[in-house]
């Protein structure tokens, strides 16, 4: 109990509260501008949070992400351009409502359901994480190896696009992670004689490059000008909301649950959670034909899901050190840099820190309501900030941020290189998220792999000796081979239609 009180003491300090409020406002800015994602915002925030204590640092990232995802609904409703990918699932509905003059219903629903979903996710986090940690305490290197494999595979397969490209992206990330001094023997790998590369590719500049610089590149080649703004005035946000949302309260709960679960899957973040929840909502709705025409049910459920996923992503992150989405990947990268390996040991060694993080989650999700209201009021002006001034400022901020982490210009060069890599990857359909997870977890994966191999003395069956390891191993192998097997099975079973190569004659 004293731990919980001490945790409150850690949070309710003016400095921490100011940081939370500041990142909330930053979240409004980043979420409201299309093209700036919550992940990018977290990456941009890192150079600042890097110099803070862990509690305000995590609180800042959590608040920024939660508010940015909500604020992303605003340009979606007003401009039909989602501010963050997480809002894309219900942009059509929200925009339709604005055109019908019921914009406050759309945005009020967004804000309130986001808070509800986020709070639900936080509740799950607070309850499930310690329970899982107790299980994880008994994990050995074999279990961690299989779990990390499963998590990375999930990230590669679940990301949008082909599974093959997701796997390729993952391998690219893992390969980049091997650059530097080998962890078991100290041999320099892929350093090509460079002294700086011996320390490996610095994580934060890499992320800034892949998420922010790549976006600057995209802006440099973008053709389309900004679309005109819907000028309908948005009135009282919360009036009549309770009555409008009452029939969908089960859906909102389902949305929060689905979101939290999907968020907990590594690599699956708020955008996937929102799409899945939207699809589920339409499937189980009593009025599916109204979806897409301005129906609030989809907005409510998917809006709850995308914020729920933000909290859910922290479950594997805190318990196993495996990030549930790209934002937690960034947060874990920061924690590792500060010498704090997230894992079950944190639950024993620093319970106060953990409770403080949980309280920060509650505060952040509660703040969504007032900040969301402020965001809607400010949206008209924020959305009009000219990109030709904003993007250079982001560029400058990235350069300084990348420099600030390593205090060398090498960081800036890494940021540039990985910005180009990230841009080229996305252009060719290779998702960036698996690469980032590979980069973050590559070192850990290899460490677990090598120690397991050394323990087993090369005997691969040792990977399946322990029951949990065996179960995880079998599941991982199934996930790897099942898609291929299924495709082969289907191809065998389908009767081949007679192919008419000539086709109908054209006259």
């Amino acid at each position, binding site marked *: 109990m004293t731990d919980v009180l001490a945790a409150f003491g850690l949070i309710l300090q003016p400095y921490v509260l100011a940081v939370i409020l500041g990142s909330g406002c930053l979240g409004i800015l980043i979420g409201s501008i299309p093209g700036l994602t919550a992940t990018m915002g977290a990456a941009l925030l890192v*150079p600042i949070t890097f110099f803070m204590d862990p509690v305000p640092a995590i609180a800042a990232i959590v608040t920024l992400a939660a508010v940015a995802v909500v604020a992303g609904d605003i340009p979606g409703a007003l401009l039909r351009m989602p501010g963050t990918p997480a809002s894309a699932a219900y942009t059509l509905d929200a925009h339709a409502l604005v055109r019908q003059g019921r914009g406050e219903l759309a945005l009020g629903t967004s804000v309130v359901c986001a808070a509800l979903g986020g709070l639900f996710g936080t509740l799950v986090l607070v309850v499930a994480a310690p329970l899982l940690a107790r299980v994880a305490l008994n994990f050995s290197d074999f279990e961690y190896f299989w779990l990390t494999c499963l998590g990375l595979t999930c990230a590669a397969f679940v990301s949008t696009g082909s599974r093959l490209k997701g796997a390729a992206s993952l391998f690219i990330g893992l390969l980049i992670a091997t650059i530097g001094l080998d962890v*078991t023997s100290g041999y320099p790998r892929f350093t090509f004689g460079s002294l700086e590369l011996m320390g490996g590719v610095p994580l934060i500049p890499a992320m800034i490059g892949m998420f922010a610089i790549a976006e600057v590149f995209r802006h440099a080649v973008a053709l389309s000008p900004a679309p005109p703004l819907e000028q309908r005035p948005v009135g009282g946000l919360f009036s009549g909301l309770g009555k409008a949302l009452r029939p969908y309260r089960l859906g909102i709960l389902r949305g929060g649950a689905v979101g939290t679960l999907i968020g907990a899957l590594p690599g699956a973040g708020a955008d996937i959670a929102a799409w899945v929840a939207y699809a589920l909502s339409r499937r189980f709705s009593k009025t599916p034909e109204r979806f897409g025409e301005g129906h609030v049910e989809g907005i409510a459920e998917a809006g709850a899901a995308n914020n729920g996923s933000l909290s859910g992503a922290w479950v594997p992150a805190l318990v196993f050190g495996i990030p549930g989405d790209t934002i937690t990947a960034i947060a874990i990268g920061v924690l590792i840099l500060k010498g704090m390996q997230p894992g079950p040991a944190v639950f024993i060694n620093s319970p106060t820190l953990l409770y403080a993080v949980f309280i920060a989650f509650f505060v952040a999700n509660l703040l969504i309501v007032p900040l969301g209201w402020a965001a809607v009021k400010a949206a008209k002006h924020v959305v009009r900030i000219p990109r030709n001034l904003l993007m250079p400022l982001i560029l400058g901020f990235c350069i300084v941020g990348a420099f600030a982490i390593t205090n060398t210009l090498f960081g800036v060069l890494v940021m540039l290189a990985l910005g180009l890599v990230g841009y080229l990857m996305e252009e060719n359909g290779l998702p960036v998220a698996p690469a980032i997870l590979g980069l973050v977890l590559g070192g850990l994966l*290899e460490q677990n792999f090598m120690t397991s191999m050394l323990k087993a003395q090369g005997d691969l069956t040792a990977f399946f000796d322990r029951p949990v390891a065996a179960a995880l191993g079998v599941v991982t192998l199934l996930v790897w081979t099942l898609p291929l097997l299924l495709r082969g099975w289907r191809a065998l079973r389908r009767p081949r239609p007679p192919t008419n190569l000539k086709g109908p004659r054209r006259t």
Partner: protein
Amino acid sequence: MRVNDLVLGLVLALLGGAAAWQAGGFPSRPGMIFGPALFPTIIGLGLAGCGLLLAARKLLSGDRTPWYVVPEWGRSLYHVAGIPVVVALILFYVWVSPALGFTPTMFLVLLAAMLWFRAPPLRALAAAAGGAVGIFLGFDLLLRVPLPVGPLERLLW
């Protein structure tokens, strides 16, 4: 720079193959069965495998996407130059800032980028100046990051 899956697959396969080949040369310490070569070799082979599967899938599917598709912005010289300009600005900062100092270099970079992105010149001047000074104050004074100090700044304070 979008290439079709065949080229992409071959590039990835080449990359993975090169990595695995290079990794094969990493020596292990005597007495250790597995050394620094194991993990990168597996990853390199995995990447090469993905690349080959990607190329094979494109070959077998018979779809006719050309190996290189000129993007919509490819016809405008301004847009084609966009990315090289950004790269050049970053490199400019890397080379010039130790000598010139942070604030002037950043001001030049911001101004050049804003003007390139077609911002109105007066607004660009104001925003670039404000941005450079603001970032300096925020990072150097507030966060105590050792940003390079140049001759111009030494004159001022």
